[in-house]
């Protein structure tokens, strides 16, 4: 099997969603609201969008993330533990060679980073990654 970046990320998000349930904030509902506003309440698919984010942030003040969704017209990123969940929106014109973007975001604490893509056909794709923000451990 040839492993694609996409299958990797699908595996990654599948295993990480349960990691941080405790203390998931009231902001989560803000994110749900914001996503609904973006999608107009339409259902979201998965598999055609990938999100690369560290499992544990090295520095919560500047967390590198990147998104990739071939065929996307627009991608919005949300951080569900931040006071204002909308982080960034990237718009792609029909001549855009790649529908990917990278940025750095600030995460106040452990939370989910959610990317939602509006595809050129009007459908929506969503992917989620749990990023842990920690005060630091001890190592071996």
């Amino acid at each position, binding site marked *: 099997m040839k*492993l694609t970046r996409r299958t990797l990320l699908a595996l990654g998000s599948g295993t*990480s969603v349960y990691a941080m349930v405790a203390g998931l904030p009231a902001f989560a509902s803000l994110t749900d609201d914001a996503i609904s506003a973006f999608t107009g309440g339409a259902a979201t698919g998965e598999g055609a969008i990938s999100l690369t984010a560290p499992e544990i942030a*090295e520095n919560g003040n500047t967390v590198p993330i990147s998104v990739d969704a071939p065929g996307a017209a627009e991608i919005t990123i949300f951080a569900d533990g931040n006071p204002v969940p909308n982080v960034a929106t990237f718009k792609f014109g029909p001549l855009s060679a790649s529908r990917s973007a990278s940025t750095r975001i600030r995460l106040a604490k*452990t939370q989910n980073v959610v990317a939602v893509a509006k595809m050129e056909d009007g459908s929506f794709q969503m992917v989620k990654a749990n990023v842990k923000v920690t005060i630091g*451990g001890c190592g071996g």
Partner: protein
Amino acid sequence: MISRRDFLQVSMAASALYGASGFGNWARLAAQQQLTQDQLLQFDTFGNVSLIHITDIHGQLTPLYFREPSINIGVGGNKGAVPHVTGADFRKLYGIKDGSPSHYALSSGDFAALAQGYGRVGGLDRVAMVINAIRADRPDAILLDGGDTWHGSYTCYKTQGQDMVNVMNALKPDAMTFHWEFTLGSDRVAELVEALPFAALGQNIFDAEWDEPTDLFPPYKMFERGGTKIAVIGQAFPYMPIANPRWMFPEYSFGIRDENMAAMVEEVRSQGAECVVVLSHNGFDVDKKMAGVVPGIDVILSGHTHDALPEPVVVGDTIIVPSGSNGKFVSRVDLDIRDGRMMGYRHKLIPIFSDVIAPDPKVAALIKAERAPYLAEMAEVIGRTESTLYRRGNFNGTWDDVICDALLSEREAEIALSPGVRWGPSVIPGQDITREDIFGVTSMTYGEAYRTEMTGEFLKVVLEDVADNIFNPDPYYQQGGDMVRTGGLGYRIDVSKPQGERISNMTLLTSGEPIDAGKSYVVAGWASVNEGTEGPQIWDVVENHIRKLGTVTVQENNSVEVIGV
């Protein structure tokens, strides 16, 4: 297509460590005389390629005692799986007889008595002898150092890693990866790495500013051996800027980066590699998960979590070989690489019994020369111990109890915190404690012992945070290491719960009263990852404490109640 069954058959046939049949009773060992260097080195050369793996030496040039853990809890999918099996259960699992050399080398139980009989382990001059012997069988064997090499001893601290670099260079490694090395500071790391006569690898060592690979640490190196091409991909410790002080190496970013690992595997395969070896400092459970996520890796040489297993763990078509720590073991892995793939392997975890394996005279002389300038100050006797002093275990070790007591009394604190690192040799009952022994469990470049106030609420946050680094059910969120050690503070931990719910019943041990979330407590600790931490060096604190005690006796520590296992 090689099947899982082929792998397992080879594995069983080669069954690892000499001594699985046992040597009978341990009482003052005739066993030691029966154990010979030839037996330890015996190996029927196999296939066309040999790998030699050593990892997590932690600056230990000379023979030492090292007690393996009694408690090493696995969570999630690794519950009850190796290496989370200890003591008698471990021996039962691998058919190791009580009192045998394998018992002493690989598991806890009767440690002090067995240490008296079997003596010390490790010593890089003995390691050199083993490497020489393997190279006599297979001159082009590939020697790989898994990192945590330039850290952990008096001489390593004083020479900023130079002693280890000099001695390791004499062993002629082919490649290395990294963890604690970076705590020397990025300038010193660059200085040492630029002068290395072998590859410094790390596919996950990135430039922090641009989040792209660095020139200093290439991702992999190709080797042509035995008529085939082997790629060795480096994987440094993923969580260095979190577990260790980020301000000491701000130019670098790490992370697991398994998508990049997958890309590197594809890249080396496309360049003709018939065998892909990952030289990893991930820690065992992270390696196990990565083997399942990233296809195309034949061998993972596993470091960081200091586990030693008598045979590889197989995940799909990948074998994972953990090789212990502190110079106690060398792994030899012979591979049969044909027709573009790994057809089979033979493995042996070779325990370095220091009294059985002869030192290599050249390396012994080199070690002596490196130590000579510091010998007098290192050898100074500070006290003696009536208890075994050790560190390994998820919650506390007797060495940590001594360190926490030293912090409580010397820094006049109510509560002490000591990092749950896994390095540090043991001292057996009746032994003197030297300054070198104290450095063996405390040496680091950020050893200042702070004294501060923390609220009960913040103390709980600290315990919860560290607990999640160890007991998060997803290995990718585990940093390796063990629970932060506490002095003056007891608690209950439910390892099955999520973060925020594991810790309860926090108690101030002096008064027996529950910890009050709103109250401030005087806390002393060391190894803070924060820049500008002030205080005396931890080794001075511990030395003063032991000097006052004269003789150290450690009582059983019942201050942590563990549930949910």
